[in-house]
C-alpha cells in the first residue's frame, strides 16, 4: 500500500486514492509511423527490477496526473513531479544516481 506525494496539491496520498497509469515518458506514435514504432509504443513496456518511472493519477483527490520515480524492488520513492515533464527533473536524476550508482538512466 504505497504512499505518494501529489506534486499538484501536495497531499501525501495512499494507494487507495490513486490510479496507476503504467510507464511514464512514452512517446506517442500515430498515423505515418512504422509497424515497429507503433508496436513499441502500444505494447512494449519496461518492467525493470529497480528504478522505474510511472504515471499516477490522484483520482480521489485533486484529479491530476503526475509522475513518480520509485524502485520496484524496495518500493523506495525517489520523488514525484508534474505530468507535464518531458523528462525527469535533473535534481531527481542526480538523487537516483547517488542512491543507485549502477542506474543506467531513465531512457
Amino acid at each position: 500500500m504505497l504512499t505518494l506525494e501529489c506534486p499538484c496539491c501536495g497531499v501525501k496520498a495512499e494507494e487507495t486514492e490513486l490510479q496507476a497509469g503504467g510507464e511514464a515518458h512514452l512517446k506517442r506514435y500515430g498515423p505515418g509511423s512504422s509497424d515497429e514504432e507503433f508496436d513499441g509504443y502500444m505494447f512494449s513496456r519496461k518492467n525493470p527490477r529497480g528504478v522505474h518511472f510511472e504515471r499516477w493519477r490522484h483520482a480521489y483527490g485533486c484529479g491530476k496526473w503526475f509522475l513518480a520515480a520509485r524502485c520496484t524492488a524496495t518500493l523506495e520513492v525517489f520523488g514525484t513531479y508534474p505530468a507535464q515533464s518531458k523528462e525527469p527533473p535533473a535534481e531527481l536524476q542526480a538523487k537516483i544516481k547517488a542512491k543507485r550508482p549502477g542506474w543506467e538512466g531513465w531512457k
Partner: protein
Amino acid sequence: MSTRLQKGGRLIDRTKPLSFSFNGKRMRGFAGDTLASALLGQDQMMVGRSFKYHRPRGVIASGAEEPNGLVGLGQGGRFEPNQRLTTTELFEGAETASQNHWPSLEFDVGAINDRFARFLPGGFYYKTFMFPRFAWKHVFEPVIRQSAGLGRVPQNRDEDRYEYAYAFADLVIVGGGIAGLAAALAAGRQGKRVWLIEQSAHWGGRAVVDAVQIEGTEASDWVKDAVEAIEGMENVTLRTRTMASGLYDHGYLLMYERIADHTPGDGRPRHRLWRMRAGHVITATGAIERPLSFAGNDIPGVMLASAVRDYVVNWAVSPGDRTVIVTNNDDAYRTALALLDAGLVVPAIIDARPEAKGPLPEAARARGLRVVEGHGIAKVKGSKRVTGVSLCVQAGEGAELETISCDAVAMSGGWSPVVHLWSHCGGKLIWDEAQAMFRPDAKRPATGADGAAMVTAIGSANGILNAHEVLADAHSAAGGKGAAPGAVCGEDAPMMPVWIMPQGAGPALRMKMWLDPQNDVKVSDVQLAAREGYESVEHTKRYTTLGMATDQGKISNINGLAVLSDALNRGIPETGTTTFRPPYTPISMGAIAGEARGEIFQPLRKTPMHGWHETHGAHWEPVGQWRRAYCYLRHGEGVHDAVNREIRNTRNAVGLLDASTLGKIIVKGPDAGRFLDMLYTNMMSTLPVGKCRYGLMCSENGFLSDDGVVVRLTEDSWLCHTTTGGAERIHGWMEDWLQCEWWDWKVYTANVTEEYAQVAIAGPNARKLLEKLGGMDVSREAFPAMEWREGTLGGFRARIYRISFSGELSYEVAVPASEGRAFWDALLAAGEEFGVMPYGTEAMHIMRAEKGFIMIGDETDGTVIPQDLNLGWAISKKKPDYLGKRAQERSFMASPDRWKLVGLETLDGGVIPDGAYAVAEGVNANGQRNTQGRVTSTYFSPTLGKGIAMGLVRHGPDRMGEVLDFPVDDGKVVKARIVDPVFYDKEGEKQNV
C-alpha cells in the same frame, strides 16, 4: 488426568465462576480462563480430531500457535467454526463443539484412515486423483469435497457488527511483553506518537510466568508499574486484544482488535480492523517454542513445556499428576520446577544433551528430580491420552530401555522467534547456529518510502532469550536515554539441536513422529517428498501440506525444514523458510468487510426520479453503481409482459424513459474542437452550433470504446453524451490526454452527469405532449431532427435534443436535476390523454435492436472496431489523426475476413440464445468445431411478433439470405437467416415526422 489446582492461577478469579458447554456437556470455569484452560481444568484432554487420519487431538500450546484446539463456537447468528481454544477467553454460556469427526468425538468412523495411514502418504492426492479422467467428476471431486474443509460453515446471517478505524503513529510497537513495554517507555518519554498493542488481554508476556526479577521487583509488579506509567503518557496509546495481522508497503499495518469476543451481544462491535500508517514498526512479538519429533508426540497430553508452565502458573491447571519433561535445552527445567512448586510429580527430565550441568539442571537435581542425560523418548504410550513413555538413547535407533508411567509429557525443542511481521515486507532472516533458529537480519530489514528500515525487531522476536538482554535491546532500539531496566535471571546453558528423537529412528518410529498435527504431516512424509525429488521448501510444503493448516505451521515449520534439509544432506539456511504471509493469525471475514454489508455494501447512485420508479413497480437493473428500471411491473404482471406492453405503447402512443444516467461531459476552450477531433473517429469541430452528431470513441488500440451524441453548445463548447457506465471512464480518458499528452491545448472538461435530469419522450404522440406543456416550438419545421433548442417548457428550464434511440419521433429533454421529479410528474399528468407510459431499459434495448442500433458492451467487447459494425460512415477520412487511427491501419484490422454486423432471423420465429456461435465446416487444431459468427444481441420483438437478433458473421453483409446453424444446448440446432440488421422502419420515416 488434568485438573484444577486448589491454589494459584494469576489470571483467574475464583470468585467468578462461569459455566459453558462442550459438545453439549455442561462445564465450569472461572473468569480469566481461556476455553483451553477451562477444558483442561475439567479433564477434557481430547478436544478434536486431526484432518487426515482423524486421530485424537489435545491442546498442545497456550497461545496463537495452537494447531489442535479448534472448535465451533456459538449458535445461530453467532456461530463461527475453527475458533482457537487457547486464544478465546471464556465467557458465561459459551457453547463449543469439537470438529472433524462423525458420529462423535469419542467414536469416529473416519479414524479408519489411521489404520490405512501407510496407504495415505505425502502427496497422496497428487498421486491418486489423476487418472482416469472421467473419475474426476464422478468419484474424486465428490470424495474430496466431502472430506475437505475443517469445521461447519455458518448458516445464519452474522448478528454482530464490525468496523474499520484509521490511525497514524510515529511508532507502533507490536507485543506487550517486557520488551514492548520497555520500548514504549523509552519511546514515549521522547514525545513520539506511539502505539503499543498486545494480542492477548494481558501485559507482560512470558517474563511474568517465569517470575523474572526486574529492577529489584517481581516482573508482574514491574509490568503493572510500566503499564501505569505508559497510561500516564498522553502521546502513547495502549491496546490489548489487538493483533498486528500484517505489515504492508510504506508502514501500512493492519491491526485486528477483538473488542467483544469475550462479551458477545453487549452492543459493541465484535471486531475492529485498524488501518494504521506507521512511521516505524518495532516487533516485540516474542518467540514460539518448538515441539520435539518423537513417536507418538501427537497423543493428547503431550504439550509444549512452556504451555504446561503457563497452564500451571496462569490458570492453576495441572495437565496431570505425573508429567515427564523431554528437552534439548535448559528452559524446560523451569517447567519442571513450576510443577514441583505446584505440588505435582515430575518422574523424570529426559535431556537429549549428553550433559546437562547448567544452573537450572543443577537446581532440579537439588530438588531431587531425576535428570536422564543423553536420552530421548522412544515412544509415547496411550491413544486418547498419554499413559506413559519409554526411554531410549538419543544417539541410538530407539531400543526401549525403560518405561515410565505418566499422564502428560512436556516437550521443548528450542525456540523460534516470531518473525512474521519482520518478513511480510521483505525483511530477511539469518540462521543462528547456536540457538538453532532463524532470526531477523538487522542488516537486511524491510525498507520504507525513504529507503530506510521501517521495522526493527527486539527481544525474543530478535532471537534474544535472556530477559536482561531483552530489556537492553528494547531500550536501545527505541532510542532510550540512560540505563535500560535491568533484570536478574539465570544463565541458560547452550541448547542442542534435535530434529528427530532418537537420531537413528527407523521407518516405524518416523511414521509416528508428527510435524504438523492438524494436517497430519509426519517426519516420514517430508523424507518421502525429499526422496521423490522435492528440493524446494515451498514445493515440499504444498506436496505434503506441511504448515498449510489454520495455524500456518507456527510450531511445525522449522522442524519440517530441518528434516527436509537433513534428508537432502544440506544445511538449514540453504533450504530456507517458506514465505511468511499475512494474516499472522486468521481474522474474521466480518472484520474484513467492516461496515460494508447490506444496503451500504456499495454506494447507490439514484436519479432524481428514482423515488417515483420505486413506488411504481420498478424491476431494478444494476447499471454500474446506478439502479435503472428494467421495466415497471403492474399488478399481477410478469417481466416479459411488462416489457412488451411498454414497447407497444411507445410505438403506438408515447413512452417516457428516465435517461438521466447518460454521461454528460462539457468540453470547452479554444482548442476544444481540435481535441474532440482527436477523441472521436468523426469530425466534431465542424458541427454547427445548434446541432447534434452521433460519435464514436476508440481506444489507442483501435477498438470501439464508447459512443454517444455530441452537441455543439456554443462556438467554443461542446456537450458529449456517453454511455451510462462510461461517464467517469471517458472523463478520465479525456483528462489523461489533456494532462499528459496535449497539455499545451487550451481545453477544460467538466463531468456534469448528475447536474441534469434527462427524459426521452418517444412515440407518435411525443410532439403533442410537448406542445401541450407549451413554451417552445417543437414543430417539424422549426425543430428538425439532430438539432437542439433551449427554452422554457411547461415552466421548466429545458434543453431539448431531437434525437432518437427508439426509432420513434423522439425528444430528449434535460432539466436541472433539482426539477427532474417535478418535470417527470408534469409529463405524466399532461400525457395522460395521449396514453403516456414510462418504459424501462429492456424496452429501450429491444427498440434499439429493432432499429439495428448497436449497444456498447453488446455488439462490442473490446475486440470490435467500428468498421466491423458497418459504422465506416462515422469515421472521418479527412482527419490526419484520431485516437485509434494508426491501430486501425494495421493489416489485420482491414482484413475482409473480420466478422461483421448483420441481422439474424430464426426460421421458426424463436429467440436464439445470447452468445450462440454459428458453426462452419471442419474442426480446428483442438478438435473443436470451426465457427463463423456469433450472436451479440437477441430479443423477442413484440413489434414484429418474432425473435430478432444481431450478430457478427464472417463476410456477413455479403451473405444476405444465407441460413446459419447455431448449435445450442442438448444437441439442438437453431437455424437463422442472415438479414439486414434494421428490422423496423428501414427508411427511418417514423422518427422524422
